[in-house]
């Protein structure tokens, strides 16, 4: 029943995740935090799709929904043709194996009292896949080899490893169950640039060899550009632009995407001193009472009348690019300036 190459492998459709805000002794609900508020995107098999956007805009919450580790308020998640958002318990189990996560923090996410062997092997034990001691050991050696760890490191403990090595342990563990989809939430942000480069190269090699699909979340836009096929830009619980890598970085369309790219610091003090350090203007928007119309309009340098009242839909522009912005709507004539 595997999907064909062109069918989307993962579809997230109008996903909403709202957290209740309560008040008083009885915990009466007085509002909600609309962490994810109508997010849709699709991943092709074997591609790397990245989510970027402002801190707190709902990237991790979206990822946790795909992993079925939180309860979506609305929307559907379809993985390889099955609507996993409708499954519970035993029916969900096979999908849990096929979707794995690598976490940001290579220090906090590994049990300090377990050996590397036990850390990598734990998912095998949990899912009852260790048929014999010998098969278990062989699989662990294979996984360690895959991520470039030496077999004799298996009996060491996490604190004996560098950050980059610990991140490799996390990746080996995520690969133990032969997943099809890896979700990587800030997998390299704790690493120095040289080790970060090693881990990025490793992820690209593994994808080629194992045909993995990646949902990648990161703030470092040069890493995102390097590793991604396509990118979705989020702002305040919504996707505002989706485009192929070169289109997005070469010609960003949504004013938020433009502001984001303009804020990337370049490793060149002369250039940095010479250019203006624009900071997005305006108040940080409330997640409990998001601005009406386009959520970015209070901070947008291009906002005009319709932006204040109508929320723009995510629409196809040229090629495979999507953007949610009235500047590109035929229905609204742009004011002449």
């Amino acid at each position, binding site marked *: 029943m595997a999907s064909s190459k062109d069918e989307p492998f993962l579809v997230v459709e109008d996903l909403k995740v709202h957290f209740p805000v309560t008040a008083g002794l009885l915990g009466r609900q007085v509002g909600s935090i609309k962490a994810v508020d109508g997010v849709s995107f699709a991943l092709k098999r074997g591609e790397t799709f990245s989510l970027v956007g402002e801190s*707190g805009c709902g990237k991790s919450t979206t990822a946790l929904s795909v992993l079925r580790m939180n309860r979506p308020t609305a929307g559907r998640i379809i993985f390889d043709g099955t609507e996993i958002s409708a499954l519970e318990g035993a029916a969900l189990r096979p999908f849990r194996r096929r979707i794995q996560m690598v976490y940001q923090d290579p220090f906090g996410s590994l049990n300090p009292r377990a050996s590397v062997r036990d850390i990598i092997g734990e998912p095998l034990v949990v899912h009852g896949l260790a048929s014999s001691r010998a098969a278990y050991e062989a699989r662990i050696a294979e996984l360690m080899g895959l991520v470039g760890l030496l077999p004799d490191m298996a009996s060491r403990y996490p604190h004996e490893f*560098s950050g980059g090595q610990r991140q490799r342990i996390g990746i080996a563990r995520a690969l133990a169950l032969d997943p099809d989809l890896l979700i990587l939430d800030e997998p390299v942000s704790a690493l120095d640039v040289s080790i970060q480069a090693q881990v990025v190269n490793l992820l690209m090699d593994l994808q080629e060899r194992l045909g993995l699909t990646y949902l990648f979340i990161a703030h470092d836009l040069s890493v995102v550009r390097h590793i991604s096929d396509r990118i979705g830009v989020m702002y305040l619980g919504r996707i505002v632009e989706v485009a192929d890598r070169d289109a997005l970085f070469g010609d960003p369309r949504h004013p938020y995407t433009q502001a984001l790219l303009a804020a990337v610091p370049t*490793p060149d003090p002369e250039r940095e001193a010479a250019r203006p350090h624009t900071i997005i203007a305006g108040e940080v928007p409330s997640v409990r009472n998001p601005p009406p119309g386009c959520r970015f309009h209070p901070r947008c340098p291009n906002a005009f009348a319709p932006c204040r009242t109508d929320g723009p839909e995510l629409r196809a522009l040229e090629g495979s690019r999507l953007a949610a912005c009235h500047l590109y709507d035929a229905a609204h004539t742009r004011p002449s300036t």
Partner: protein
Amino acid sequence: MSGHLLSIEDLSVTFRSERGPVRAVHSVSLHVDEGETLAIVGESGSGKSVTALSILRLIGDAGRIDRGRILFDGRDLLTLDKAGIRSIRGDRISMIFQEPMSSLNPVLTVGKQVAEPIRLHRGKSWAQAMEDAAELLERVAIPDARERLGDYPHQFSGGMRQRVMIAMALACQPRLIIADEPTTALDVTVQAQILHLLKELTRELRSALILITHDLGVVARYADRVAVMYAGRVVETAPARALYARPSHPYTLGLMASIPGLDAPAGTRLPTIRGQPPDLANLPEGCPFVPRCPHARAICSSAVPPLEPVGPDHLRACYGFE
């Protein structure tokens, strides 16, 4: 005597481990002046955090400061008694820790955690301290800050927790802020806002900032001077512009070459520094970078090269190469 706000002189720190003593920091000397931002960069495990933690004597029971002095406002912090160092922490020197989740208390509300140092060091009432906390959280761009004072850390995103740590560090208007990877969980626009805020404050209060980061773009934009660490030692230090214009230590050169710039070709394999990170319990003789250095010569394994000037205010620890 030095007119520096903080100066670290010949600091060495060792940890006990099953495989023998680990010298995490080796003869490190650094200083930072009023109004200045010093960046510390270097490999994972090179001793950046341990150096920073030593300033506030927070290295824990397994570690020992073997040698050195840390002068702050004319006093050696390493000789203060417990009460003395505690009165400085979070007040005149504050630290933004590398791991927000393990540094925040999961069962205390965000508001209380930010208000606590204000109450402790400034003797304000809870109500006043909470008011200050709300303002601080607004300054670090937490949306709905006032309404979210009662939230617990797990209800905040990764980057929001990091900003809570920053608000706590700013609470008492410190003379020195030590920020250990303060913006790893932040997008570039919020990062710019936060670093801009930290810079403003150091200017306003004539204080200083020690910024530990892996992001060489951030260093280029915000640092006045840079120290590069490798295997527990400072291997190069220079004004930021000089370091980028003329990186002089082979490790610094390797680091600069690994940056996946926004104008480099995408989708290809990135250059890395060959070989493995050093094992601190088992360092080679001489320069610790020898096993990975493309320019190593016989002399490099004879003794650790001293830091020597290669330009104005620019030092490197290397016997030189073509």
